[in-house]
């Protein structure tokens, strides 16, 4: 049986990694991820987790060590944030191309310059094309649950998986949550065997040289296999729900029944956004919230279903693509562009570098979006607006 505990988000992730009995942890400390690996190092030192902790000299090496250990069949873990993820970036494409089920947690952090250790999604947005399964948690319970699910998904489909947790908003906040019993988690994430491990008795070559005559075929195979992960992701969440009572889906809806306007967010801001939606609902406005849980593979069908009856979609991005706008909004727009009845999609950018967004500001975004569409129709939806900026 599980028990209710008060736990910091970072420690919740460390508990998940301990309960799935990871074999190798390679990580380099960086705020706001540090508490995760500190706690794991402590668990190993205290004999609570039988794993190899590799102290590396950089995030580039951390992911390289994870690739090597995973290729040898180990269950591995690493985590990073902000600049650390950027330094790791080159190696992140390797496990996805080599089909190694590495699991990582990103405690999302703004990118320099200027230097900021606080949360936004700039680091996550630079990882869109790395070929990993990517999910966004919105609280500590989800940080734990999604990390456990990440192992199950990754090992079933042989692709790496990353759980994004908002730096500080999740990593450093203590919340009450349910910690399942260890044997229940172990049952849910059983031992696995990679079909092609590094083994002197059965030699294989990984990460081979691929001249133009074969490289495109490798990418086609990777894309087809990655698209096919979707059904396993859904099955994992379904089974997790039946085992632990908490159900997840790629696109999660909040008060969307009869909604005419929807706000779409990713990560921890959805908790504040829900309060804003409640207040607007109490005032009689037909608004709802869409929380994008699964970021890769992108949930096209679920998103289209979620917006089929609404008239206006408001998307909040916690990152900026310079000269382009909000990256989440641009993907949402591309997912909905081919619909017969297109709706205006208004883009807001906020919460950069750890700036809070208040309930009032969420309500402002929804109101302002309506005004813009009223003033200029579809053209009014063209440009993103940064909120909470002083003149």
């Amino acid at each position: 049986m599980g028990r209710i505990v008060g736990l910091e988000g970072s420690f919740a992730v460390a508990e998940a990694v301990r309960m799935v009995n990871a074999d190798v942890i390679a990580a380099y400390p960086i705020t706001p991820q540090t508490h995760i690996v500190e706690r794991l190092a402590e668990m190993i030192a205290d004999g609570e987790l039988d794993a190899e902790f590799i102290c590396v000299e950089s995030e580039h090496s951390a992911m390289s060590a994870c690739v090597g250990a995973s290729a040898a069949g180990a269950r591995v873990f690493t985590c990073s944030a902000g600049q650390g993820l950027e330094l790791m970036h080159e190696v992140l494409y390797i496990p996805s191309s080599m089909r190694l089920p590495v699991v990582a947690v990103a405690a999302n952090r703004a990118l320099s310059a200027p230097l900021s250790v606080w949360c936004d999604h700039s680091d996550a947005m630079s990882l869109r094309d790395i070929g990993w399964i990517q999910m966004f948690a919105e609280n500590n319970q989800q940080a734990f649950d999604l990390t456990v699910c990440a192992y199950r998904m990754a090992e079933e489909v042989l692709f790496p998986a990353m759980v994004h947790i908002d730096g500080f908003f999740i990593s450093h906040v203590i919340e009450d949550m349910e910690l399942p019993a260890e044997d229940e988690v172990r049952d849910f994430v059983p031992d696995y065997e990679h079909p092609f491990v590094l083994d002197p008795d059965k030699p294989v070559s990984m990460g081979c040289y691929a001249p133009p005559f074969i490289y495109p075929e490798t990418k086609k195979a990777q894309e087809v296999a990655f698209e096919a992960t979707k059904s396993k992701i859904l099955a994992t969440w379904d089974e997790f729900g039946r085992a632990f009572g908490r159900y997840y889906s790629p696109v999660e809806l909040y008060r969307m029944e009869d909604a005419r306007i929807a706000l779409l967010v990713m990560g921890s801001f959805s908790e504040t956004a829900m309060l804003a939606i409640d207040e607007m609902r109490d005032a009689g406005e037909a608004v709802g919230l869409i929380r994008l849980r699964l970021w890769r593979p992108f949930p096209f069908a679920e998103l289209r279903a979620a917006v089929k009856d609404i008239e206006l979609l408001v998307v909040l991005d916690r990152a900026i693509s310079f000269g382009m706008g909000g990256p989440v909004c641009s993907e949402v727009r591309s997912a909905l562009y081919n619909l017969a009845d297109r709706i205006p999609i208004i883009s807001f950018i906020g919460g950069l570098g750890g700036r809070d967004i208040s309930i009032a500001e969420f309500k402002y975004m929804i109101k302002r979006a309506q005004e813009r569409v009223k003033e200029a129709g579809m053209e009014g939806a063209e440009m993103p607006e940064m909120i909470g900026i002083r003149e």
Partner: protein
Amino acid sequence: MSEDDMMPGWKDLKPGFVVTEPGSASSYKTGDWRSERPVRDNVRCIKCGICYIYCPEGCISETEDGYFDADLYYCKGCGICAHECPRGVITMEEEK
């Protein structure tokens, strides 16, 4: 059957493009990169084997009569053997 038909399709590949046949790189023909081929003058060659030592491709081997020949399936035509030959008996001739 064209060369394209003999190439593996994407469905033929193992997950992650894992290669399960050890040493399969030896079937990769690097000889078609070559624009010049090494040609040896047997009369002046002293069979010292310097070309064999310096070949970066490792494609030169000793023949039964003690000379050293490049395997043109692999020889990339870099010309290092010709450059290093102490007797200057190897010349690089343009591939036609």
